[in-house]
């Protein structure tokens, strides 16, 4: 599989000279299998950078949750307005409203000029936690992970490899440190032994202390989680908007030096691609 980071920023976009390398667009990732099939994971503003292959033919967009930084790009996804392109959007089920009703809050006036119901060739799919779905050559297993609201993590199998995607995740919630017990760790089953883990690393330790319960991790939490899950490679994601490229580089260098992780640790750079 080829995995490309289309948007890496968390919460809100932040374009500017200080965020050129790690990027200013919000969460979106493209996954391509060896046969050319594609999946788009989340549709933050970064989704507009999807490859031509990912936005033609039959398009699949899988949403971890419906916070704005994960859906804002939907309104600007060309295939949604092309009657010749079949678009499937997969998102978490809820008990109080359908996926259409919840997405429609954004994709309708006054927030957006076009109604969701007016988009041609769109099919919505509600994903239950714990479900496994086959999409072309991909098999995607979902589960609820700790983040406010209905939020899923994805375990994507393709070409015999495993990508785990948890852009917004706070496995440490309610504890001082990540537990050493896999059975009691949010997201463990999805991430166990993954070839590539893309994981929330939004905050510094100081920032986290003031934002417990907001649903995000520190770089240190992400490293702890990756160690526990035994992944081969961790790519940090959902960068805090106020963090500059230079600061993210510095923190990565420090944690590589201090922790000597047993896996490959990389910062999630805008447009970076990984062969899995």
């Amino acid at each position, binding site marked *: 599989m080829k995995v490309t980071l289309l948007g890496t920023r968390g919460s809100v976009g932040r374009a500017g000279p200080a965020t050129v390398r790690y990027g200013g667009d919000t969460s979106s990732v493209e996954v391509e299998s060896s046969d050319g099939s594609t999946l788009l994971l989340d549709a933050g503003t970064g989704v507009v950078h999807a490859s031509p292959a990912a936005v033609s033919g039959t398009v699949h967009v899988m949403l971890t949750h419906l916070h704005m930084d994960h859906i804002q790009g939907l309104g600007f996804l060309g295939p949604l307005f092309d009657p010749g392109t079949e678009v499937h959007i997969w998102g978490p*089920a809820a*008990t109080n409203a359908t996926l259409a009703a919840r997405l429609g809050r954004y994709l309708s006036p006054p927030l957006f000029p076009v109604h969701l119901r007016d988009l041609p060739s769109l099919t919505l799919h509600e994903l*239950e*936690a*714990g479900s496994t779905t086959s999409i072309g050559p991909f098999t995607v*297993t979902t*589960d*609820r*992970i*700790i983040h406010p609201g*209905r939020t899923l993590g994805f*375990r994507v199998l393709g070409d015999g490899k495993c990508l785990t995607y948890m852009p917004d995740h706070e496995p440490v*919630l*309610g*504890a001082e440190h990540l537990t050493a017990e*896999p*059975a*009691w*760790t*949010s997201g*463990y*089953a*999805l991430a*166990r032994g993954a070839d590539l883990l893309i994981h929330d690393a939004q905050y510094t330790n100081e920032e986290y202390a003031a934002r417990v319960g907001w649903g995000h991790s520190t770089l240190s939490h992400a490293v702890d989680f990756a160690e526990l899950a035994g992944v081969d490679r961790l790519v940090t994601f959902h960068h805090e908007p106020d963090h500059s490229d230079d600061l993210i580089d510095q923190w990565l260098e420090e944690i590589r030096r201090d922790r000597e992780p047993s896996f490959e640790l990389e910062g999630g750079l805008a447009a970076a691609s990984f062969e899995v």
Partner: protein
Amino acid sequence: MATQHPIELILARQMADAMSHPMWITDAAGNLVFYNEPAESILGVRFREVGEMPASELADRFATQDLDGTDLPAEELPLVIALTEWIPAHRPMRMRGFDGMWRTIGVTAIPLVGEGERRVGALATFWELED
């Protein structure tokens, strides 16, 4: 995939861990998966000493009686009601802890039903009553 408890149980344990009143958590099969520190004084043993316990062992470890001293059928226990009828249940009762001591307690159990109506377990809170 490796065994991992459902997110609802993980969150319930984290909540119980933070509470100052006794709480007990079972999975959907009735296996004890956690009780918190305040529960240890009533149950008579630290959780870390006994750990998770199969449902089949619980009746032997923690005997129960009605307030008049008659044995309580399992189906009348609040936790069992929560796990079989999936409704909250409450009753005062007597329980013999791991230390062999009988105590009079009140028990309130609630079922834990997650997303998609997934039945993931039950949570009970209990407290000592005056005899």
